[in-house]
């Protein structure tokens, strides 16, 4: 079994995080991770990037949201129709 280089490691990170690496590659990935501080930092950066992306997806709209009034009317109709 050959070792992964760091250059190869960084290309496998998304597959790794998705649990999509074949078992043999997964083993090489884990082995590399154990011995390489640089790649541990890289993986940590990727996970931090994912947190930032999630935060961007949860950021409420600034200012007025288009169509809110119409939606609130929909909400009131829905509420009235509830048993």
């Amino acid at each position, binding site marked *: 079994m050959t070792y992964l280089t760091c250059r190869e490691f960084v290309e496998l990170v998304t597959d790794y995080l*998705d649990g999509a690496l074949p078992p043999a590659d997964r083993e090489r990935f884990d082995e590399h991770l154990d011995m390489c501080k640089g790649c541990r930092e890289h993986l940590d950066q990727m996970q931090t990037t994912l947190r930032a992306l999630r935060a961007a997806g949860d950021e409420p709209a600034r200012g007025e949201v288009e169509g809110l009034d119409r939606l609130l009317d929909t909400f009131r109709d829905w509420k009235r129709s509830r048993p």
Partner: protein
Amino acid sequence: MDDQATIAALRAGDEAAFADLVRRYQPLMLRVARQYVKTPAAAEEVVQETWLGVLNGIDRFEGRSSLKTWIFRILMNQAKTRGVRDQRSTPFASLGAEDGDGPAVDPSRFDDEGWWNAYPRAWSAVPAERLESKETIATVRDAIAELPPRQREVIVLRDLVGLDGPEVSEALEISEGNQRVLLHRARAKVRAVLEGELT
């Protein structure tokens, strides 16, 4: 307000809780819907229908996924139905030249044998407040806006919306492998932009 509290408030007919939810997800919903239908007006209709679906389904929602993921699943179904009628705006064909090329990390960061020249900086020192700050979020959004369209579509659905790989590949009618290639490129570019910002 967490998911449980929001769900309880909606069921109780709390209008403010509904308005908060709309403010939070409407822009992302419009953006996702826009990928499937021809006009902004059609996207707005899809989003309106989605909210109605959310209200009508809230009593049956069991919380097996997050509220957000559930809302976006409804949206995708609405958008697909509508998109089939309208013919979708941007055909999502096989991977193009710009989609899968290029390394995830600048090649000059590695030596001839493929090891790091210098270790990447630790980001663990970056506090959560900084990561979730308006500035960082704006940086992330700008980075996404710069991506090729297909990479952008995948990263929005996977990482901003939170759908899983099979859901995204089904929605975009691409293989899971292609979906992952696009996601990998997209995340790598966002990481590189954040590296410039955070270190």
